[in-house]
């Protein structure tokens, strides 16, 4: 399985951006030091049975409510959206890590620095801009990425809760990991194979209609069906080290949520990869996914991916890709967890099959609600390829501001 790792020499390019990295880290630390109340660390345990009736200590949100009905409000908390007028929320996150494996040299870097600007006018209109510095090393066993980019830039109009229209560049609604910033939101330092190999594009440039419907089961309308239908052009995809992803795309995501913690979904995606050489092809992908919390402290999650190409396009590009993982997370305390994930990838060639198996164990904790710390080990095994098995370990710290 050609899972796209480069030899990762210490290139001149890395040296050129080191000063910028240092500046970004300094800025991130400065911003973290003044974390906004929305992410501020607050006690989670029960307080005494007395309820604070501190009339003298008026609510920060209530204050905003009364005074934010006109003009353009800018701030770093959701409070800015309390009025009906134009408002922009500014926020972001950053993470840094030490990562190493037993076949190449270690990496100590700021991996991400993201800033977002969420502008809304009332309940219906929204403009969202996110810019990102990304510096993901290759020691995880996937292709390294170093770039500044506009991560998302879209406008949205909500007709109702059941129907909204989004136009611009947005994260691809495909499964669980792809649409989110997994580096700060998910449990592990390394991503699942389907995300690391970018078998589907990270973003779409196009249009989407999306919404939620509520299904009546029994006497309660207690089941939620959310949907997304979109079309556009895939971007920045280097699936299995193959360049060229430009071309029309179309996709759909359906997600059925039974409880807040339990869901199943299916994502469908078709990408025309318009290329001038023999690799011109159409790819059709499907992802089945689900989350289940059988007991309060245990969360189980799985994503099963399959991609079919319309024709065989050379010895290095197979007809089918099968990737999947199952993971479980046990919460020891509200701020400490242990996670295990088994991942599998199979790039089925003509008469051969390149396989990758990963076992990922992560210990995570949150010293504050604005901080994420992860320690991780991952064993990677390859079959049917000349890639060496390797062991990965790393420590990651993420902050929100």
């Amino acid at each position, binding site marked *: 399985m050609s899972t796209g790792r480069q030899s990762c020499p210490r290139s001149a390019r890395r040296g050129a951006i080191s000063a910028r990295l240092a500046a970004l880290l300094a800025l991130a630390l400065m911003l973290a030091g003044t974390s906004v109340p929305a*992410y501020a660390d607050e006690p989670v345990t029960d307080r005494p049975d007395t309820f604070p009736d501190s009339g003298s*200590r008026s*609510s920060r949100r209530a204050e905003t409510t009364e005074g934010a009905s006109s003009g353009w409000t800018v701030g770093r908390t959701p409070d800015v959206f*309390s009025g009906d007028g134009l408002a922009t929320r500014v926020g972001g996150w950053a993470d840094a890590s030490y990562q190493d494996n037993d076949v190449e040299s270690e990496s100590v870097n700021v991996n991400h620095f993201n800033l977002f600007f*969420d502008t809304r006018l009332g309940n219906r209109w929204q403009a969202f801009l996110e810019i990102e510095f990304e510096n993901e090393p290759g020691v995880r066993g996937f292709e390294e990425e170093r770039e500044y980019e506009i991560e998302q830039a879209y406008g949205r109009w909500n007709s109702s809760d059941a129907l909204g229209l989004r136009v611009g560049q947005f994260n691809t609604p495909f499964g669980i990991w792809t649409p989110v910033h997994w580096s700060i939101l998910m449990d592990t330092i390394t991503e699942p194979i389907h995300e690391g190999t970018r078998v589907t594009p990270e973003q779409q440039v196009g249009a989407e209609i999306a919404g939620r419907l509520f299904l009546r089961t029994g006497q309660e309308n207690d089941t939620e069906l959310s949907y997304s239908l979109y079309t556009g052009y895939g971007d920045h995809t280097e699936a299995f080290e193959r360049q060229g992803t430009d071309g029309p795309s179309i996709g759909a995501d359906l997600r059925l949520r039974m409880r807040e913690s339990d869901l199943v979904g299916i994502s469908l995606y078709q990408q025309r990869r318009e290329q001038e050489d023999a690799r011109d092809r159409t790819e059709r992908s499907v992802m089945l996914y689900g989350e289940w919390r059988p007991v309060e402290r245990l969360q189980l999650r799985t994503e099963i991916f399959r991609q079919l190409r319309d024709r065989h396009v050379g010895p290095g590009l197979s007809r089918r890709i099968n990737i999947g993982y199952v993971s479980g997370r046990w919460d020891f305390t509200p701020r400490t967890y242990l996670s295990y994930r088994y991942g599998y990838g199979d790039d089925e060639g003509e008469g051969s099959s390149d396989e990758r198996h990963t076992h990922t164990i992560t210990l995570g904790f949150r010293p504050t609600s604005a901080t994420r710390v992860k320690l991780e080990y991952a064993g990677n095994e390859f079959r049917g390829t000349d890639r060496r098995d390797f062991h990965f370990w790393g420590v990651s710290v993420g902050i929100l501001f």
Partner: protein
Amino acid sequence: MHWRGVCGLTVLALLGALQTPAASERQPIAIVVSAEWETPPEIQLATLRRLYMGRITRWAGQPVERYDLASGTRPRVTFTSQVMGLTERELEDYWLEQALSGGAIPPREVDGMVEMRRVIASRAGRIGYLPLAALESGDAARLRVLAVSVGGRTRHPREADYPIDMDRASGAKGQD
């Protein structure tokens, strides 16, 4: 003397263990809206959950402004657990994901019961919650307490099987 003391303490401990625990008092959480707001007299627990998760933004014919008590307070932990079916940390993760993706906006926080009563009473379209015991006699003219419907059964906070109650285990999952 030493053994007498040990035996005495053991007997006392056994007696203590055999004591029937005192019946705990119910501490229901009341869902409140402005008395001026013409809403149905009850709200489904599933609807309440969706409002507070930002999945729906309208109810009873108009946009809804949601209000939360401060994070970590016992009424808030109870509400999060029994209405949303989540822990405080899970809810924190949810709002973080929403913020980073331009999604739903969290409810506004108020610091205490006085502030909650004042804010909710001041405008139609606002919804909040507080312990039933924290309501005062003067609130009747300004606030209205909604009954909560679960599985086709509607219960008022004063009824025994009302679904949002601090006396129940805080880790209990929401039931809808």
